[in-house]
């Protein structure tokens, strides 16, 4: 009886690779064009999510409805990617789902400079803080793309955005296209 040997990848390598990817797209390829950089990163995530969902649903039957597919994303898919499940799922029963991860792994080490909040005048500190927030939000396009790619491979076209008003918790908002 042979034991199924799992292949493993170093987590530090993946983290560093993602950091570099975001940094390269934002600062080198599309410097000063954050919307284009965001779209490219999201497109990469889309491809990755597409392929991953193919892999992780190999032995499963088709999903009956959208809720089943979203629950798959929250439980099995998230566990394969981040070794934990989504902590909280909310829906308005009209095609919008909010997936909340209370400690999103890829953001767990981001820390915004506290000295930026002690500006004398309002404008420079507000601008600096929003730059940090913008830099952080660039790291979210990849996971949003992954979710969008996975769902579209399951036959559910949608739009995904992220909300980080509450670091290190992160909420992904999925709007299914009618």
């Amino acid at each position, binding site marked *: 009886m042979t034991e199924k040997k799992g292949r493993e990848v170093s*987590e*530090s390598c993946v*983290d*560093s690779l*993602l*950091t570099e990817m*975001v*940094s390269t797209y934002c600062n080198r390829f599309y410097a000063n064009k954050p919307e284009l950089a965001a779209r490219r990163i999201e497109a990469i995530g889309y491809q990755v999510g597409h392929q991953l969902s193919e892999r992780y649903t190999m032995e499963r039957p088709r999903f009956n409805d959208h809720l089943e597919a979203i629950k798959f994303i929250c439980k099995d898919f998230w566990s394969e990617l981040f070794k934990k499940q989504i902590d909280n799922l909310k829906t308005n029963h009209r095609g919008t789902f909010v997936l909340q991860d209370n400690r999103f792994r890829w953001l767990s*080490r*981001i*820390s*915004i*400079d*506290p*000295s930026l909040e002690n500006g004398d005048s309002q404008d420079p500190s507000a601008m600096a803080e929003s730059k*940090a927030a913008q*830099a*952080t939000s660039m*790291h979210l396009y990849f996971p949003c793309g992954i979710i969008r790619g996975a769902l579209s491979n399951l036959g559910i076209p949608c739009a995904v955005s992220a909300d980080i008003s509450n670091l290190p918790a992160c909420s992904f908002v999925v709007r299914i296209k009618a």
Partner: protein
Amino acid sequence: MQFFGGSEISPSPPAPTVSGNNAHMVYVFNRNGVCLLYREWNRPLHTLNAQQDHKLMFGLLFSLKSLTAKMDPTSAERGNLGVPQLPGQGCSFHSFRTNTYKLSFMETPSGIKIILVTHPRTGDLRDSLKYIYNLYVDYVMKNPLYTPGSPIRSDLFITTLDQYVRSIA
């Protein structure tokens, strides 16, 4: 050769003590002498301004390392003084003690120097310094918003460091 232990942060810190911070101050320098972090919890006397103080500390460590390597009676080879080595290899001092404080030092292969100044009866702090280095790797080096070589401003790192140092009895 795994030097700094597994991928998880280890060892886990003991429970925090009730009294305030036992340590006096901590410095973190990088390979080029840039002071990445300076925290003080308990230092009534300031003789120099911050910049001079950091330069003095870095120079002191450089000289001490050089001196201890040159005076080593057990080693036949000179060793390369400019290059950081694995802790335990070559000859490098790790602490000195006076009647009022103890200074503990660790240099990593990447040239990061961590200095912790505590009260004189503190035991061997090498494991604690390793733990602090692990914190540095996790919260500073892995922070996508951090530029290597610039002063550390990560809230997460500083808070965790404060808590950990408080727990070193």
